[in-house]
């Protein structure tokens, strides 16, 4: 593989309408050279439509697609030079593994010697050299996935597009291939754009995640930034789990104070005066031992609990904040959970983040 660096892609106010139905509304996105970006969203959120517009299979109703600043909106898919791993892989069933991988080189009329050398090198890269003469139907799901990757990478594409590349695999294999995909990205140094509905996959693979809901880009950022500071209720609940606390907001020097009943919750983030919404991750709430203090302390009773091996999932009923879900590591819990047991919950100020309600 040559030392060509990755390419940068940008979407400028791209929309796709099918009659009345808006599949993608006004999406703008920058993908830096060599980055791994994941489009994450539930089914029907428009993530695949965006990928298909990047690939050139779907023509945007409005907006532009730029590669390294050059407008490619009108360029047909076969001339974009993007590698693509399709959902279900779409390997050519009538060709061997080597012929599948050679396909992009064959249609580019590369010489035989160079073609063979590149196919070998790419099969090597995905550790499939000994399967070169098999048919796709004789391979396992994971091997087929690697053939699809090799086929998409062999012609040294400007971008690699992945459409739910791991969704056809079972859970264990998926975790394994996630690591492989990540390592591959580091090795080839290309720009990868991935589509998935699996938040764990998105968090572990990506440099950046773009979250979509109902055809709109809701938030774009590094995985930890999205997880720690979700912008909306949707992001907070789609990426991980979250408690939501609604109340009257007021500003103070440390950030935000939310009043609900007799309870004041210290939080971070911005919210206009009036009603505000906080997101509070279950694993950031602690059950406080006797006498220990915390920025926020709330008393309640355990309404339900379940043991998960590594920890406990507990639901605590509080007077003002309603039910709070709490995830505790087993070794950090100071009491033995039991229904009706009174507990003191505490969390630092930074754990409660102001989020916006979802746009209707």
């Amino acid at each position, binding site marked *: 593989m040559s030392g060509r660096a990755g390419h940068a892609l940008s979407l400028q106010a791209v929309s796709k309408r099918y009659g009345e139905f808006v599949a993608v509304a006004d999406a703008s996105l920058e993908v830096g050279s060599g980055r791994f970006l994941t489009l994450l969203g539930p089914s029907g959120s428009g993530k695949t439509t965006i990928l298909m517009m990047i690939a050139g299979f779907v023509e945007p109703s409005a907006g532009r697609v730029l590669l390294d600043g050059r407008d490619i909106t009108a360029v047909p898919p*076969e001339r974009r030079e993007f590698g693509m791993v399709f959902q*279900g892989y*779409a390997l050519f069933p*009538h060709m061997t593994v080597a012929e599948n991988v050679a396909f992009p080189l064959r249609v580019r009329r590369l010489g035989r010697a160079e073609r063979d050398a590149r196919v070998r090198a790419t099969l090597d890269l995905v550790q499939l050299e000994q399967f070169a003469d098999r048919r796709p139907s004789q391979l396992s799901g994971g091997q087929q996935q690697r053939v699809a990757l090799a086929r998409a990478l062999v012609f040294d594409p400007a971008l690699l597009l992945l459409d739910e590349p791991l969704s056809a695999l079972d859970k264990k294999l998926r975790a394994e291939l996630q690591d492989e995909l990540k390592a591959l990205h580091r090795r080839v140094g290309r720009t990868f754009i991935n589509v998935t509905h699996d938040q764990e996959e998105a968090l572990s693979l990506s440099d950046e995640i773009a979250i979509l809901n109902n055809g709109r880009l809701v938030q774009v950022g590094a995985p930890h930034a999205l997880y720690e500071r979700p912008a909306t209720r949707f992001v907070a609940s789609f990426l991980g789990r979250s408690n939501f606390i609604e109340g009257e907001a007021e500003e103070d020097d440390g950030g935000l104070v939310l009043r609900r009943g007799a309870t004041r919750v210290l939080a971070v983030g911005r919210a206009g005066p009036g009603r505000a919404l906080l997101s509070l991750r279950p694993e950031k709430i602690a059950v406080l031992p006797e006498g220990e203090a915390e920025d926020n302390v709330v008393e309640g009773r355990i309404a339900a609990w379940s043991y998960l091996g590594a920890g406990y999932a507990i639901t605590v009923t509080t007077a003002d904040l309603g039910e709070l879900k709490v995830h505790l590591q087993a070794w950090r819990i100071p009491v033995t959970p039991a229904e009706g047991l009174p507990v003191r919950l505490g969390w630092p100020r930074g754990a409660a983040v102001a989020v916006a309600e979802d746009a209707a």
Partner: protein
Amino acid sequence: MRPAGRHALGWWGLILPAFLLMTAFYVAPILQVLAISFTEPQPGLGNYERLLTSESVQRVIGTTLRIGVVTTAIALVLGYALAYRIALSGPKAQRWWLLAVLVPLWISVLVRAFAWVTLLRRQGLVNQGLMAVGAIEEPLALVWNEFGIVVGMVHYMVPYAVLPMLSAMREIDPRVLAAARGLGAGRAGAFLRVFLPLSLPGVFAAGVLVFIFSLGFYITPAILGGGKTLMAAEWIKLQILDLIRWGLGAMMATVLVVAILGTLAVFSRLVNLRRLFGAGG
């Protein structure tokens, strides 16, 4: 007997009545007729000797094969284009297309043959049209020759060519075609390197079906050939009904049956013949 064996015997028992019926009323009479080729006019292989010695027998076989091959080739090309168009259209349009393909099958082959005669004869619509626009001076001989036979037979065979090919094309995953485009193949490249090879089993199946049908055509060549171009089926009728040479007619019938079974045997190694009978797979 092992339980599995007894089980299998039960299944065979179920089809036994149908098997006996077929043997008694279908297979046995046919074999009896075919056997005449060895017994009339005197016992021996005399009739089959004609295959090597008689020019007229060889000419009939040559004509039949030639028309069969030409018809198959043209029907495959037209059928492929049609099947491709149908396979690429939406589900609702597909139903209408299929109806249009199937409607000719419901019209009597006799009616269709005479319709072609009307169109193709010297004072027919085609010749008069061409003369009216000045394309030709004299009417062309479009019927009562091999050309007319091929036209009529292709018309009859196209639906039989479309159906197996369409069934093969429908099994092609559309994502595979998108993949070909995405990986750098143009429309033509994606078709030639991916769609065409994946549809080939259907083409083979359609080819076998059409070719076998073509060998045994009787009414269409009889009417559109005008008695001048003889294909095997009409020649057999001539031998048996007009010249009362049962032995020779039965010999040609045997050759036809053997040729068909031979074609099936060869192609069953290449393609899944169940596709012909709509079983798919």
